[in-house]
């Protein structure tokens, strides 16, 4: 009973991890760009929900999902066009660049919205929960459904749509894709738009759990990178499994150990380090003949 409850909690933590990591499987996993400002796109999505609240009232979360996707996506596109594209192939410079940008964005948020954290009120139908022996809070169910929905949408996009297939082609072998007539630069832009937009969606989901502040993204960025690395770079399947595995591991360690909140984090880190010793490529690897 308690164990089942904890499994549900783990799955809901996993869903949150998955949502915040999805965007990174594109920009970090596929393009190899370490975008330290990814967390700030999460924050931008969360603040979008906050800003929409007085305009559209209690249903703001639903309206915010597409709007936040667009806002964060456009921010990502601007970042890619103005800065990151000049640094392709120079990962260390990209790292410093995007880290600086993330600090700038945090300060901008602090100036616009004030330093204290703000709250987004959940719509009425998201408060309370479902009792099926175990208690399923509606906001958690919503996040899980959202995460599953996003994964499905991405999977369909990557496998069924022409744009998605082009994206995979570029990620697997840029030169070959280019000589085959794929406009790689356009594909890069689109990839960055989608990856950043997904961060915005994750931001909206996070408003259902806790407060919104300028450092919201920073709190989650490390977890997001962990999921992508453990799952295997650019692997949707890997990210899904890694997110839920880490979420469930976290929730059980926290439950079994007295005063487990801090220790759970330690155990998760240790497990990932151990895992990467055994499988440095993560759970899944793309096999290509590209020289790296």
């Amino acid at each position: 009973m308690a164990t089942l409850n904890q499994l549900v909690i783990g799955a809901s933590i996993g869903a949150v991890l998955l949502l915040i990591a999805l965007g990174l499987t594109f920009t970090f996993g596929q393009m190899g760009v370490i975008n330290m400002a990814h967390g700030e796109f999460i924050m931008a999505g969360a603040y979008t929900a906050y800003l929409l609240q007085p305009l559209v009232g209690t249903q703001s979360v639903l309206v915010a999902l597409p709007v936040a996707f667009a806002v964060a996506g456009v921010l990502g596109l601007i970042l890619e066009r103005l800065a990151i594209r000049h640094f392709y192939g120079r990962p260390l410079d990209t790292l410093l660049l995007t880290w600086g940008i993330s600090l700038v964005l945090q300060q901008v948020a602090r100036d616009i919205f004030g330093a204290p954290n703000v709250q987004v009120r959940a719509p009425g139908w998201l408060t309370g929960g479902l009792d099926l022996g175990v208690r399923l809070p509606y906001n958690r169910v919503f996040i899980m459904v959202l995460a599953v929905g996003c994964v499905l949408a991405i999977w369909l996009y990557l496998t069924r749509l022409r744009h998605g297939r082009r994206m995979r082609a570029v990620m697997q072998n840029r030169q070959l894709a280019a000589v085959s007539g794929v406009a790689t630069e356009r594909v890069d832009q689109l990839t960055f738009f989608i990856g950043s937009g997904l961060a915005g969606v994750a931001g909206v989901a996070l408003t259902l759990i806790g407060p919104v502040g300028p450092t919201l993204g920073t709190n989650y960025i490390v977890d997001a990178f962990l999921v992508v690395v453990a799952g295997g770079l650019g692997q949707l399947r890997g990210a899904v499994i890694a997110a839920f595995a880490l979420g469930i591991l976290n929730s059980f360690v926290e439950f079994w150990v007295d005063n487990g909140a801090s220790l759970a984090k330690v155990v998760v880190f240790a497990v990932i380090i151990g895992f990467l010793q055994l499988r440095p490529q993560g759970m899944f690897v793309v096999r290509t003949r590209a020289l790296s």
Partner: protein
Amino acid sequence: MPRGVRDRLVMLAAAATLLAAAGCAEDPTTASGAGSGSTIKVGILHSLSGTMAISEVTVRDAELLAVEEINAAGGVLGKKLEPVVEDGASDWPTFAEKAQKLISQDRVATVFGGWTSASRKAMLPVFERNKALLWYPVQYEGLESSPYIFYTGATTNQQIVPGLDYLREQGKKSIFLVGSDYVFPRTANKIIKAYAAANGMTVLGEEYTPLGHTEYSTVVNKLQQAKPDAVFNTLNGDSNVAFFKQLRSSGITAEAMPTVSVSVAEEEVVGIGPENVAGHLVAWNYYQTTSGARNEKFVQAFKAKYGAAKVTSDPMEAGYNAVHLWAEAVRKAGSVDVEAVKKASAGISLEAPEGTVTIDGENQHVFKTARIGLVQPDGQIREVWNSGQPIKPDPYLKGYPWAAGLS
């Protein structure tokens, strides 16, 4: 391919290092010169950003109101007060650094500041080393009495012990402790466990989460398994928002399992959402609803300055009192000299919004009335019990035999 992966991992490690460094990043502030001439500089040092800002910004506001009132009445010793405001950024080393800056660069006469005990412990050596004065306005875990700190919030025997007495009177026999992972909750819980052992209460569990933590479903699940009569909550900052939201959405009601919070006041209730915390208990020395003409005046003045929608709370009132108490001590001493002010402060009394407060010369704490309150659906707190008269501060709990082993 493995090579590429390894490179990316190295990059990530570098990224993590940067993130860690970001916590220590500090902007150099330009020197503003020593205070002289027609004003007296006073430092105000609170977290204006980060997880503690939800609470501390309001204390700064209240302190600035007191400074304004003193200036409107002609200042002290014929000079106006000039506040120098700094941001501790919810980061304890920053507090120490900014305190040093206020003392040696701005040469302030005194500093009003801090909220978490971690920030106070970080500032304490700075003030002791410089022989400078700090006025700390928040309830805390006791077991401290620095000669260079005045404590205008409650110590344990003025808040936590009365809170436990109240629970016992209500017939609550088992409690569960939930707190943030730093010095105040851990020390407070040590005291609570000693009390429980001596008074026939059972402590069913003890959970700590990092400051800023927002994932409370596991803690809530543990509460559901343990089924305590009441929860003693020492969470700080906006973790309370997540905790109460998740407590409510799990279906636990205030009737079935009331919580007693010692760091949730009117301001935090606004942030948590009154509907999420209504019916739960809090323990403080002051509420916005505390009766008396002095409090009406304080509430009115605060709303006039900051907006009608603003609320007043215990730490705000204690910060406001601190500024007025310091001004009184300066007037009595005839100087802003630290040693003279300390000497003059003993026994100084103030008609404060919470009632009469008096500085105890022995330990530089103040006599305060304890009050237990019930959070109302409109976000205000209704007093359900008070101690009748100001309680003498006893930071080391010397008057309580059960506390003999604590340190």
